[in-house]
């Protein structure tokens, strides 16, 4: 039996935690004093001192790792031997010699392509219904938010089980349809061709969730008088939706779309808990994890991570560019 003393497991971390916290506090005080001593204005000195923890974090946990991972992406590095510069070999391998990479890239992009629009439209639909004059709004809102409160792991396992081919709930509910059409029950996550729809269906469950609440809050923010004006002009429901609600809601929709894209391109935990056939590929983040921490290909994994970063930036930029055409900021044109 392995003995693990309390100190080794928790005590040392607790001590480090207290020491680092105290050290950061102390350095804030010292920075403040030093700046004041050098004749900096009091307000300025205090300001810098207060944001110091974040500034340190920016340097240590973001800028330095950022530069290091760019460097690593041009090397071969397995941790045990020093990193070896190999130029663009990792990128060449990624695009020309790695079938898993292409499969995973395809799966990840297709997932976002379906998940983001469907999720946003679904959430918008639910939010529009909730925005009517209905009784017990708080109760409905609570119910629809439940799936988002559940731990991702629980959701992933639940759907893996519900979509189980031979004894899952979904195939049970669909069995009359299978019988009527005289077809084999679908194999969902275990069928390479159905992996994508299965993940999209699971993702749709989160429609009832954060996005609905966010869009509902956006809807409540649309000034009432705009609808009154539209009523005076004889607008019908559809026209009010098209010319008042959607434009006024567009900044919120924009936020939901952007965060949705960023999140869906980075899905990890669900993909890790649900085994899928190798032929279907996997999600990019899981691929990066495997390359880095199972095969110790730190250089190659960094290259994929950089590719993913550029992909996310390009797509986000595209959405930002397009936003000029469809996002309406009220304050902007006054």
């Amino acid at each position, binding site marked *: 039996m392995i003995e693990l003393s309390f100190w080794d497991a928790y005590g040392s971390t607790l001590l480090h935690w207290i020491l680092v916290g105290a050290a950061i506090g102390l350095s804030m005080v010292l920075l403040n004093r030093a700046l004041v001593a050098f004749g900096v204005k009091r307000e300025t000195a205090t300001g810098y001192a207060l944001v110091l923890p*974040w500034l340190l974090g920016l340097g*240590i946990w973001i800028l330095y790792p950022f530069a290091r991972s760019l460097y*690593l992406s041009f090397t071969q590095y397995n941790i045990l031997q020093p990193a070896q510069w190999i130029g663009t070999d990792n990128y060449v391998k990624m695009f020309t010699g790695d079938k898993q990479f292409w499969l995973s890239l395809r799966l990840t992009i297709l997932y976002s392509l379906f998940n983001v629009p469907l999720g946003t439209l679904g959430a918008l639909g639910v939010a529009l219904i909730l925005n009517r004059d209905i009784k017990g709004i708080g109760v409905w809102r609570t119910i*629809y938010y439940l799936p988002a409160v559940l731990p991702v792991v629980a959701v992933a396992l639940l759907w893996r089980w519900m979509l189980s081919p031979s*004894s899952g709930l979904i195939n*049970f509910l669909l069995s009359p349809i299978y019988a009527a059409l005289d077809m084999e029950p679908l194999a969902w996550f275990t069928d390479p061709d159905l992996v994508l729809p299965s993940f999209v269906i699971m993702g749709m*469950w989160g429609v009832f969730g954060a996005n609905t609440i966010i869009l509902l809050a956006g809807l409540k923010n649309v000034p009432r008088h705009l609808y009154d004006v539209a009523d005076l002009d004889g607008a019908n429901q559809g026209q009010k939706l098209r010319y008042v609600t959607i434009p006024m809601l567009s900044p919120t929709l924009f936020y939901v779309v952007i965060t949705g894209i960023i999140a869906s391109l980075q899905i990890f935990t669900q993909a890790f808990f649900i085994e899928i056939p190798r032929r279907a590929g996997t999600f990019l983040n899981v691929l990066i994890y495997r390359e880095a921490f199972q095969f110790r290909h730190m250089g190659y994994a960094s290259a994929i991570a950089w590719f993913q970063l550029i992909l996310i930036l390009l797509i986000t930029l595209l959405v930002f560019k397009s936003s000029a055409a469809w996002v309406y900021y009220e304050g902007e044109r006054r």
Partner: protein
Amino acid sequence: MTTTPVSVDKPRFGVSARRTVTNIITYALLILFSLFVFVPLFYMISTSLKSEQQLFAWPIQWIPDPIMWQNYGDAFAALSSIAPGLTFWRILFNTLFITLLAMTAELIAVSVVAYGFARFRFPGRNILFIIMLATMMLPSIITLIPTFLIWRNLDLIDTFDPLTVRIWFGGGAWAIFFMRQYLLTIPREMEEAAIIDGANTFQVYSRIMLPLARPALLALGVLIFQGNWNNFEGPLIYLNTTLKFPLVVAMKFFQGSISNEAPKWHYMMAMSVVMAAPILVIFFLAQRYFIEGLTVGAVKG
């Protein structure tokens, strides 16, 4: 009298009849959507109370008979069997240890930094703030490998340090943004009065700002607790010793240790219920704060 001509092509219901119809459709949809939420949830709980034979019963048994309450004990006995000395309480303690240390550090660090951004003018503040917003868009995986290498150089792999100590450095950009937005809504008069009374910055922060920002701190605390409780990637990468596993990683380890022929879905669902329970309790107690936490930034822009 209005001069508007009555339109002839519209159905000749009264307004109230039409309203009743739309109301019925609205509530019918609301109930249908609730079923989409509740049926899977019910299925999760029902599965967790079934015996292994009942799992594969066809047609599906909605209400297990007999109800296997002992599944919960058995599931955690099975979970503990993945390593000698591992118990349910140990796993729970690991999870709470990580969650509480990370949460405390993040709340303190975030409120301090946000206070700086919200209330003090200094050269470069706006540029730094924009940089901070930009870091929210960075995929975390890009810094993951070098960060792992930093902890490896410090010889702190397989400790809780990477999951807790690092949070002191400002915490998440989103949290700082959230806190700053909240602090901006607090009027300055109280602080100014305190400063005139001779309070220093630390006193203003701890005696005036923190109490006034309590709702925001609670909202953040709830979301940060949820995030750490559910965090899988961090513990997966940094922890190797089974005895240090939090709940999620132990579940993954257990899932990997059972064969495909006997997936033990009743145990997996029991563990999922246990894992979801604290979050659900907090959610019902502090719902307002959950919702507040979600909507900042999205609506106010």
